[in-house]
């Protein structure tokens, strides 16, 4: 079993079983492949260099739309214009955090410096946002319902398996964030 993250003399530490590391690695990789921009062969190289993407559109996939939300509630045109300026670098930020977390999975014991922990918390959060869309968690009642699912022996279909994975990543992120808050408190 995984051990909760904790803050101590070595910094933030955690422990994951090989199967848990494999699971997290594939989750991180899945979200990376969702976020990798599509084939933009027509992309103006200069625009690409400075991070502009004039071909970008609001994502049709709900999970991706949650990862890359509109910046204005009721102004699609202004949101799209903003997306053209910022979405590429936002995708890169997220991919960077997911890849960094994935690299840390090479060892049994996780020892995370402050920046690593931040990447992990962002990566776990994005994984949870995607799983939540797949599980159709729309409100707190849905979240409570999914949270009931704690027994791996009950995992008999894709949805219950996803619910267990969601609950595992929730538990892991919660323990990580508590350790990060503790490390912030004890900073001079």
């Amino acid at each position, binding site marked *: 079993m995984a051990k909760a993250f904790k803050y101590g003399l070595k910094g933030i530490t955690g422990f994951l079983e090989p199967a848990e590391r494999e699971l997290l690695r594939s989750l991180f990789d899945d979200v990376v492949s969702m976020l990798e921009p599509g084939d933009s062969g027509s992309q103006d190289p200069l625009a690409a260099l400075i991070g502009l993407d004039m071909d970008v559109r609001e994502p049709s996939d*709900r999970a991706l739309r*949650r*990862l*890359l*939300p*509109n*910046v*204005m*509630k009721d102004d699609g045109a202004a949101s799209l214009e*903003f997306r053209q300026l*910022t979405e590429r*670098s*936002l995708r890169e*930020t*997220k991919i960077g*955090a997911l890849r960094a977390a994935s690299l840390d999975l090479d060892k049994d014991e996780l020892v995370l410096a402050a920046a690593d922990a*931040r990447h992990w*918390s*962002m990566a776990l*959060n*994005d994984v*949870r*946002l995607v799983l*939540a869309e797949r599980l159709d*968690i*729309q*409100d*707190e009642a*849905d*979240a409570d319902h999914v949270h009931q699912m704690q027994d791996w022996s009950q995992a008999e279909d894709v949805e219950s398996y996803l619910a267990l994975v969601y609950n595992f990543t*929730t538990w892991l*992120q*919660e323990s990580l*964030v*508590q350790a*990060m*808050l*503790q490390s*912030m*408190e004890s*900073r001079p």
Partner: protein
Amino acid sequence: MTLSVALGPDTRESTQTGTAASTDTLTAPDIPWNLVIWNDPVNLMSYVSYVFQSYFGYSETKANKLMMEVHKKGRSIVAHGSKEQVEQHAVAMHGYGLWATVEKATGGNSGGGKSGGPGKGKGKRG
């Protein structure tokens, strides 16, 4: 948001870490914009508070207060500034996975995240 356990005592003062240096802009400084964070059933309450503390440098007390406002009222204004400033914050919030939007302040909103606005209950997804 999802409930977290064991929020610590609210004794810590603000620590500034993640806030990018703001650059001067040429837009009219007297047109304020708001950064709004919306509730969702996924983000952990502890994580939202952590982001407010580490990115904005808010004290634990202030971060938790804003986090609870998001949770209970469905949304909260967590920062003000020029359009460019709040847009920069919004991208950072999206990087953390928080659901953030920007909006023009509708007058009288100088209360540092005080005004809850018309948000009711759970945020609908947009």
